[in-house]
């Protein structure tokens, strides 16, 4: 992992198109601004990880694990 030291007001470039601004540092919190091409989604990591886990869970279900009729819903 690349580790850089930055001060508030400084930036990091990821390639030519993505800029990460260090906006403000208060105690344990760092406020970051991300400028990226609009097609590129930006996520908080913990949300990304939680969604990835649910996506994988929904993709591991066997065909038989999913009820096929509304009647089965009440079973």
């Amino acid at each position, binding site marked *: 992992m690349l580790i850089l030291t930055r001060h508030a007001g400084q930036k990091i470039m990821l390639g030519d198109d993505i800029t990460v601004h260090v906006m403000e540092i208060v105690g344990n919190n760092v406020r970051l601004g991300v400028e990226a091409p609009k097609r590129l989604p930006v996520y908080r990591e913990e949300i990304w990880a939680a*969604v990835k*886990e649910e996506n994988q869970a929904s993709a591991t279900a066997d065909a038989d694990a*999913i009820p*096929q009729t509304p009647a089965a819903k009440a079973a």
Partner: protein
Amino acid sequence: MSITIDSTRFGTIEIPSHAVVEFPTGLIGLGGSRYVLIARDENSPFVWLHSVDDASLALAVTNPFQFFPEYEVELSDSEAERIGITDPADADVYVTVRAAETLEDFTVNLRAPILISRGRGHQVINESEAAPVRAPLFVAATAEQAA
């Protein structure tokens, strides 16, 4: 024109080409960007979002509104701009299903719905506060029946 998927779950499936949904940035954490919706039984509340490119990749999904009539999708401005959908009502909405041994333990991810509109699909982050990652399906269904 049709395409054929040799699904590991469902065997050989023929799909009309126009049914293919393009996901420009895929689904979060999963490969593939072309999927089709497959209903095994048109009465079932559950359908499958099946990868066109990976025969073993299919996500169980459902329409959240039949279980959560009050459900809302709120997009941030940047997310709306990214996907080109400003009003989620313009899109078909699906949520992923986490299956379990018993239906009482089934949950769905209300936090990251999948919006499909005009042949394009996007998984988005729902900014609504009432949108847990694991919302119990059955509790919602019984509460609705009791109401």
